[in-house]
Structure formats: structure tokens, C-alpha cells
């Protein structure tokens, strides 16, 4: 069975501060990992993805994430957040030959200006 845990339902940071959104996964092999963002009243947009290789992956809008096999984690980071980053962020996992994405419950990010 595969699962994704996002331990923080809500995170609030000040504009210009750094950000880390946590994601832990459970999967028997090396998974494919994704971070999606959902802005209010919109669908999901892909921020970045990890398939293999360099554990640090760069995404859109200066987001990056680091894969750790030993910690079963795929944390999302940004050096300096902007008020427009306020949204809900989902970590997701898929594996093997099927295309089933397993999502975490999401983390709602609020950026204070």
C-alpha cells in the first residue's frame, strides 16, 4: 500500500521568509513524487516532480524539493515567499506501472504581508 502524509494542515509565514512544507511517504520501492498547488477556486497545478537522480529538484516559481530515501520524505522549500504563494499545497506519489496518484491531505499556506 502507498500513502502520503502532510503533517501540517496549515502553515503561516511572513512575506519574504523562507518556507518548508513537509511530506512523508510510504512505498515499498522508490516512488515518483509530485508537488501540486491549488489556488482558490482553481484546479491543481504541478509545481515539480521527482523521478530519479539528483535528489534536489527545481520547480516553477522558485520552489524546490528534496527527496530523501532514508527519511521517506519529499519536503517542499522556497527561500523567500510572496503573498501570491498563499494556496493549498498537495504532495502526491505514484509508483510502478499504474497511474494512480496518491495524495496527502494538503497544507494550506497563508503568507502575511
Amino acid at each position: 500500500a502507498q500513502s502520503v502524509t502532510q503533517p501540517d494542515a496549515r502553515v503561516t509565514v511572513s512575506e519574504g521568509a523562507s518556507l518548508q512544507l513537509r511530506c512523508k511517504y510510504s512505498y515499498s520501492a522508490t516512488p515518483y513524487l509530485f508537488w501540486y498547488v491549488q489556488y482558490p477556486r482553481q484546479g491543481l497545478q504541478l509545481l515539480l516532480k521527482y523521478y530519479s537522480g539528483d535528489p534536489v529538484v527545481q520547480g516553477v516559481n522558485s520552489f524546490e524539493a528534496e527527496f530523501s530515501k532514508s527519511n521517506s520524505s519529499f519536503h517542499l522549500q522556497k527561500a523567500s515567499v510572496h503573498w501570491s504563494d498563499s494556496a493549498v499545497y498537495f504532495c502526491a506519489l505514484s509508483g510502478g506501472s499504474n497511474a494512480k496518484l496518491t495524495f496527502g491531505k494538503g497544507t494550506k499556506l497563508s503568507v502575511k504581508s
Partner: protein
Amino acid sequence: AQTIHQWPVAEIKAVGSPLSLGCTIKGKSSPNLYWYWQATGGTLQQLFYSITVGQVESVVQLNLSASRPKDDQFILSTEKLLLSHSGFYLCAWSLAWGGAAEQFFGPGTRLTVL
């Protein structure tokens, strides 16, 4: 450029009434199509997927059904809504198949069952 459209944007329905939600993808030929559901306060779950016209596979049993009548259209429906069907329904597509396939999501339909 490809576009994905879902209808309706939002729906308020009575328990026991029928439901039909739609999804159309333009600009891509023979996409793989998916339905996801998010209960209020819950996570997203994949409900159905379709690789080709006329073929739909169920992933989670929720007393819902799905059909793919055209290459670019995916329909989610039920004859009798339950309170538990409330939530946010997302349609998605991909060109590749498998765990590495990047999926692109529509804007979603918010369903409230009273």
C-alpha cells in the same frame, strides 16, 4: 494549446437525485483520463481512469459510475446521490501512462448534497 473544461462549476443537489458531471479535453488526441474526488477536509482519491474510448476502470467504489463516450469527454454520474458524495470532483488527463506520467487537472466541480 490544450484546455480542460469541467461542468458545472458547482452543483447543489438533493439526496436521491441523479447527477452528471462532465469533463472535456481539447487540443490532445487520445489522452488518458481520470476522475478524482476530494471530500471536505479529506484528501484527493482517484475514482476512475480511462485509457481509450468506451473503456473505464473503477479504482474506488463510491456508488458512482463513469463513461467515456468520446475521445475527449469523460462523464461521472449516479442515479441516486448520497450525502457522502459531497465534495470536490477533479478531472485530469495525461498523455503517457504509468507512475511517471504527469497528470494535468481541470478546475473542478464542487458538489453539495443536501
